[in-house]
């Protein structure tokens, strides 16, 4: 040791200053500056008991359950669906046989946009990115032979979410199932569609009203159902930073809470069934900090801002999915490695369920081989790595705690900016969220183009010869089959009943009554989704954000 290095920290600083630096700046994937070393001085307001607390207790930074993965592993829930309802039903059974523990349904674009398969705008899209569905009969077929009182079902649907929930419940009723025993989640988060994913139909205000109608109905009738999956995933996929994902998602959640309270609901009646859905991106520590910050911010808002008394209302339960936007079509097998690290981040962040992407998803929907490897990635993580043994293993790390606190502070700044923009709906209508996200997306692309960020196989370590993966091809006959089955349903139904139920639907929509009961009646009468969405659009109108960029 040299004589002048009296203080170790001083000596470290000097040695660090003298050291060479790599070309790439030490920033997160979101562009956040990271210090070379974190210490006690970086966690000044940190107190073990208050800031960190214990798992299963306010502020839940360390997790929403006392035992976390020592008690029960996260649910391994792979999102899937394609082709006709019977094809997707086969894939569901395949996944359950492979040891998957919950189902997650992907719908095709016409369904996501509230269009029937026989709508001219649906041409070429039927059953392609998810399963095609038009009527209650498709829901009977989609989950045929699956015990819906045992297996939890997630449905990724937003603009017409309330219509699909009516199909699901009406189908369950025809099967003689008890609504009180059904477990699952419907995404039902329209706000992030306006911010990021662009699958909206109605204008913002009536869109949110439908979200609240579903929450109100299911809170009373389907008590185990998660009524909204408040989603940051798509915000991140559209190019946001981690902080934007965190802040915008929680702001969306708070808007739903406020609207439900304005409807006259008691916060503790519905809040325990709100769930969240976050991205698991490449930057391991940033992601872990994001999940921890999200729990603390939500618990604080629910307890202190909205006065929730029930601890279950304070808990931010989260589904995670690895980042589709991080996957590359160059050397696609490398995606397996990206997904594994991302899954690790989600688990170290304390997620309740997880979807791991398949390596071939930049090219096509996943093949059975690819989806099996994706599931195996979770199984290795759960059973072989030992990360499940200790709850919140990164808790108390100077770096992770400092980053968690920083993300909370930066999210609070966004909450204020949304307020200043006139609140959620005004901010949506003025394009605040879209602009913020687009700026971040452009900045990231520029960082990649300038090699400030290295993407393996893309802007560095390229390979001349590449062998393409075997990918899943969607049978071109799917569209014809679905059209035929829709035609059969239309032929077999009583059109007078359909018209009557659609008129009732328009009336309740116009009268500001909860539309759910009239949707159920229309579903039972074999009205199609497109017919119900059109009836709602007759009252609400349709929305387009234009082509602002």
């Amino acid at each position, binding site marked *: 040791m040299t004589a002048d290095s009296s203080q170790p920290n001083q000596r470290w600083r000097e040695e660090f200053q003298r050291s060479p630096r790599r070309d790439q700046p030490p920033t997160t994937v979101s562009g956040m500056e990271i210090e070379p070393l974190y210490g006690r001085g970086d966690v000044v307001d940190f107190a073990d008991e208050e800031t960190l607390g214990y798992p299963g207790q306010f502020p839940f930074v360390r997790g929403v359950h006392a035992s976390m993965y020592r008690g029960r592993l996260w649910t391994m829930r792979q999102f899937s669906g394609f082709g006709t309802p019977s094809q997707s039903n086969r894939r569901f059974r395949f996944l359950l046989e492979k040891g998957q523990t919950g189902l997650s349904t992907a719908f095709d674009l016409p369904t996501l946009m509230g269009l029937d398969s026989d709508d001219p705008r649906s*041409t070429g*899209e039927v059953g392609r990115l998810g399963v095609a569905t038009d009527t209650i009969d498709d829901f009977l077929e989609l989950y045929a032979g699956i015990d819906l009182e045992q297996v939890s079902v997630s449905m990724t649907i937003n603009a017409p979410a309330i219509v699909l929930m009516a199909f699901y419940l009406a189908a369950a009723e025809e099967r003689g199932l008890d609504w009180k025993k059904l477990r699952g989640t419907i995404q039902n988060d329209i706000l992030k569609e306006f911010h990021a994913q*662009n699958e909206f139909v109605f204008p913002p205000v009536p869109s949110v009203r439908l979200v609240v109608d579903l929450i109100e109905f299911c809170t009373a009738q389907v008590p185990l159902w998660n009524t909204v999956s408040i989603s940051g995933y798509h915000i991140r996929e559209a190019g946001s930073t981690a902080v934007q994902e965190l802040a915008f998602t929680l702001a969306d959640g708070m808007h739903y809470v406020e609207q439900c309270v304005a409807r006259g609901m008691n916060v503790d009646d519905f809040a325990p069934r709100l769930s969240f859905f976050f991205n698991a991106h490449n930057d391991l520590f940033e992601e872990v900090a994001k999940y921890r910050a999200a729990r603390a911010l939500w618990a604080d808002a629910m307890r202190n801002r909205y006065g929730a008394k029930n601890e279950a209302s304070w808990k931010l339960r989260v589904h995670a999915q690895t980042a589709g936007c991080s996957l590359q079509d160059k050397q696609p097998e490398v995606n397996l490695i990206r997904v594994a690290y991302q899954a690790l981040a989600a688990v170290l962040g304390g997620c309740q369920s997880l979807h791991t992407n398949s390596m071939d998803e930049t090219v096509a929907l996943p093949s059975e081989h690819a989806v099996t490897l994706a599931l195996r990635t979770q199984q290795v993580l759960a059973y072989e790595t030992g990360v499940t043994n200790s709850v919140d293993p990164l808790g108390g790390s100077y770096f992770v705690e400092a980053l968690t606190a920083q993300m909370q502070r930066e999210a609070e700044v966004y909450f204020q900016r949304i307020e200043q923009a006139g609140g959620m709906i005004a901010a949506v209508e003025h394009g605040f969220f879209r602009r913020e996200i687009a700026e971040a997306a452009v900045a990231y692309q520029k960082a990649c183009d300038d090699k400030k960020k290295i993407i393996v196989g893309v802007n560095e370590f390229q390979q001349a010869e590449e062998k393409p993966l075997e990918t899943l091809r969607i049978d071109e006959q799917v569209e014809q089959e679905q059209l035929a089955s829709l035609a059969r349903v239309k032929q077999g139904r009583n059109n007078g009943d359909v018209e009557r139920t659609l008129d009732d639907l328009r009336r309740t929509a116009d009268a500001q009554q909860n539309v759910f009961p009239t949707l159920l009646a229309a579903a039972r009468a074999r009205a199609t989704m497109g017919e119900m969405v059109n009836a709602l659009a007759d009252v609400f109108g349709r929305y387009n954000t234009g082509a602002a960029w």
Partner: protein
Amino acid sequence: MEHSPQRIVLAKIGLDGHDRGVKVVARGLRDAGFHVIYAGLWQPPEAVVQAVSDEDADWLGISILSGAHMTQVPRLLELLRESDLDDVGVIVGGIIPESDVHQLQQMGVAGVFGPGTPIREIIEFLGR
């Protein structure tokens, strides 16, 4: 001799709402001196062809990530031909499997660009 900037119409066809890529490309091309007209989401092929004609575009950039490109793009090319706009160069961006890339090129698509393509690569392609 002064050259007026090249004009490119960008549009999303089909039902998918993934517009991160097309907006990043729009910004990148504008910064590189192109005159960019972005037609927006959910554009029917007829409306896209109308925009190409109205804007007297040199290029048309189509973004599609829904998998419906083999239905939508041929329809669009056919409409361009019917409107005597087949001198307009067509490029396609999105999730397009390798085997479809060749087919699209045979049909007359000038270039196909996957997710994460550096903007520079697209600019160089359009400059050739």
